[in-house]
């Protein structure tokens, strides 16, 4: 049998850095093939070459046994890939929110009635009826129902993803690449997606999934290819492998997947008291009340966009929300009403922001400056307003060692570091003065497995040392492993509370979808 996709000794380097070295593997037709690997392992590079975004330096890719259409080794753009039946669903959906589902699918391949063929292409009226007939057929065939006339902004993330898949099927894609497809889905939506993908495969499509969630690989894929440091380090049939083996292959050493939480220390006075907080905003908060005590980790789970970001805003920037917010927030016993961010942080609050690229780091600046960000007014980093770079250098090299930040260069630009190492800078900085109250929002997002283990350990260590931790995460595994108490947020409300051990993935998933007990 001829494989649907075959990578043959593919090489790609950027400015002398080898992103892909001798990549060779086959993807059989009608299967679900998972590509796993840590950040920077080269899996995205390989997929981007398949999709035509990059051209390989050496080697070739065969589609259905053929070097692609006339061209010797690669195509020059995604357009070529789409024409040859390859489609990609990106991690961040490429949809236009104010347009309908139908228009999003048609975008770029609009058809019009032959009557108008005398007009230049861009001026012809779009014939939606014709397209809808074809789409209805596709939707029936694969069981992918969508309300064509609904605006994308009003649809759930799961449906949006369905539209992305339909987009590819409408373009007659035979090979579908999905980049981290479950990152934004609830457990229920995930299993729905998986059922759909299985059906696609039964009907002869080939699916490639890029992911780092090993559990999902085990539950859906037929084959798996493991990337590490730019090379393929293993290929397995799913039936012949297990999670531990895949994790070891990925990281190159043994990892503990579940952080073993030591018994919680004595829980003490509250570090955060929120009572009756409401916020008027698009994803507002509605009468939120809870406490975080010193020595406990409180996890907030929920699908993103249900008020978590707003909660963080309210906690961190009280002054900007004095008018739109009601209720009271007390941090370490003090009401934060009207406080500036600086004042809040000075109370002893450490923050790991969810979007570190936007809120956590100065990307164009060296590691050293990023470590200083937020600490610049503290001794010993400055005295009477003058910075002391020698003291800073000493502290930074200590932090680089302690947190194993790679490359261990103070002058390396933050943007050049991997996600895990960037996050370590943020953590090193926020932990510098042992915060009494730590807010960790999506602390392991886009972070490789080895670093996840490390970050979880640090968070647990903070708790052992008596910090109160507010953990906001959409990763259920993380929430379940770390939290002493779990709050489920839905539509700006706290919908449910679980104690450690009481919560199951199912129960949490149901609540995350808004089900009331």
């Amino acid at each position: 049998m001829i494989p649907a996709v075959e990578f043959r000794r593919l090489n790609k380097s950027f400015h002398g850095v080898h992103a892909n070295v001798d990549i060779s593997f086959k993807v059989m037709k009608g299967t679900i093939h998972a590509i796993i690997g840590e950040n920077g392992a080269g899996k995205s590079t390989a997929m981007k070459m398949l999709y035509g975004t990059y051209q390989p330096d050496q080697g070739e890719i065969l589609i259905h046994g053929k070097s692609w259409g006339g061209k010797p080794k690669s195509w020059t753009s995604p357009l070529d890939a789409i024409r040859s039946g390859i489609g990609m669903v990106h991690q961040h959906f490429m949809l236009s929110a104010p347009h309908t589902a139908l228009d999003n699918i048609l975008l770029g391949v609009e058809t019009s009635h032959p009557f108008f063929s005398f007009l230049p292409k861009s001026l012809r009226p779009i014939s939606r009826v014709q397209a809808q007939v074809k789409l209805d057929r596709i939707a029936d065939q694969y069981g992918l129902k969508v309300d064509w006339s609904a605006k994308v902004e009003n649809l759930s993330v799961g449906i949006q993803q369905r539209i992305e898949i339909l987009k590819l099927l409408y373009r007659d894609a035979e090979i579908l690449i999905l980049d981290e497809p479950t990152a934004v889905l609830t457990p229920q939506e995930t299993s729905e997606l998986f059922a759909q993908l299985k059906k696609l495969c039964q009907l002869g499509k080939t699916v490639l999934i890029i992911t780092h969630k090993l559990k999902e690989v085990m539950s859906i894929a037929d084959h798996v290819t493991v990337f590490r440091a730019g090379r393929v380090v293993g290929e397995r049939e799913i039936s012949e492998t297990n999670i531990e083996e895949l994790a070891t292959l990925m990281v190159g050493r043994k990892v503990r997947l579940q952080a073993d939480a030591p018994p919680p220390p004595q829980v003490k006075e509250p570090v955060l008291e929120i009572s009756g907080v409401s916020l008027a905003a698009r994803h507002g908060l509605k009468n939120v009340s809870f406490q975080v005590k010193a020595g406990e980790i409180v996890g907030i789970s929920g699908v993103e966009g249900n008020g978590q970001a707003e909660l963080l805003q309210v906690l961190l920037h009280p002054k900007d929300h004095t008018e739109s917010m009601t209720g009271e927030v007390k941090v370490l016993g003090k009401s934060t009403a009207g406080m500036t961010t600086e004042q809040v942080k000075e109370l002893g609050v450490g923050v790991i922001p969810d979007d570190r690229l936007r809120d956590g780091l100065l990307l164009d600046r060296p590691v050293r400056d990023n470590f200083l960000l937020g600490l610049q007014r503290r001794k010993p980093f400055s005295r009477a307003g003058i910075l002391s770079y020698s003291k800073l250098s000493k502290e930074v090299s200590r932090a680089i060692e302690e947190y194993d930040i790679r490359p261990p260069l103070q002058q390396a630009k933050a943007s050049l570091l991997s996600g895990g190492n960037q996050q370590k800078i943020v953590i090193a900085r926020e932990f510098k003065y042992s915060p009494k109250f730590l807010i960790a929002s999506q602390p392991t997002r886009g972070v490789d497995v080895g670093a996840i283990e490390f970050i979880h350990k640090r968070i647990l260590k903070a708790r052992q040392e008596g910090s109160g931790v507010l953990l906001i995460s959409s990763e259920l595994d993380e929430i379940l492993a770390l939290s002493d108490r779990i709050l489920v947020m839905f539509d700006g409300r706290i919908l449910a509370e679980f104690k450690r051990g009481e919560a199951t993935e199912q129960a949490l998933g149901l609540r995350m979808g808004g089900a009331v007990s």
Partner: protein
Amino acid sequence: MRFKEKLPQILKPLISIMVGLSLGLLVTKIAGEDPWNVLEILVRGAFGSRYDFGMTLFYTTPLIFTGLSVAFAFHSGLFNIGAEGQLAMGALSVAAVGILFPNAPGFLAPVLGVLAAVVGGGIWGAIPGWLRARRGSHEVINTIMLNFIAAGLTSWVTLYLLKNPDSQNPETAAVAPSYLIRQFSFFDGAPVSMAFFVALMAAFVVWFILWKTVLGFEIRAVGQSESAARSAGIDAAKMRMLAMAIAGGLAGLVGVGEVMGNADRFRVGFSPGYGFTGIAVALLARNRPFAIVASALLFGALHKGASELDLETENVTRDLSLILQALVILCVSAEGVWDLAGERYKLLIKKKWIRSAPSPELAEEHYSPKV
């Protein structure tokens, strides 16, 4: 090693300047002049004698101030197009203080004058800073508008409040003699004064503030990523207001050289667009304070050198200096060309036409985002 890293940073603008000047001289060829002759006139006009060199420094001084002003605002993420208005306000403030307090003691008067320049320009810079920080209205529009307001306001104050009764010109009365700073006899009468050294000092102070102090760190953090700075507890709005006020103050210092070192009074429209040329100066120097001094010198020399063209050539006038400025800036800002050159270079290596790979430092420099 350190030097090797810096080398492309120094070489690239130098090469760009050469290319820009060559293109400009080519234009004179088309206009029917001998380019070598034009070049000779330019160089002689700018550096030919003590007086010429002095005039070059005289033009350089305000450009250092305005260049620093634009650069300072830029480091906080704001684009200060209002240096022209700020320098007018600064200069008028110096003149006003010099006229209203004629009895200030000799040692205090220059200090008062410098303070007036900083405060006058600073207020004019703080206004758009405040509007941006608190009201969210864009500083580009506001600084441009404030240029017009400054032009009108300074004219009105000059003509109605501080008018020189002995002159038909739109200028104020002379400031008290104690305010005047002496011109260096070395330059055979060119109006080079201590203001030039004030400019050099300002460059040092700006460098020190931006790279050595907490304030500078915070300002640059805001300029780099407002959201990251805010999350770190930095008051972005306050930093931007401060940055704009300081930028305005720097532009206002132009008034020191003009009023105290040259004209003894405020003259309406004394600036031939120093504020706008300052944008080019800062751009060429990539907002680095010490590079701004060099960059201002280049623009000063072009300005001075080109003024000789009127007399000495048939077909080109001093306006050539504007063409040269434009071409230099075009060449310097044509970043993509360097990337293209890098790609071509790599292609040559790939085809084995040349051997060694470019050093990683060079590659790094090619792809690093620009400040």
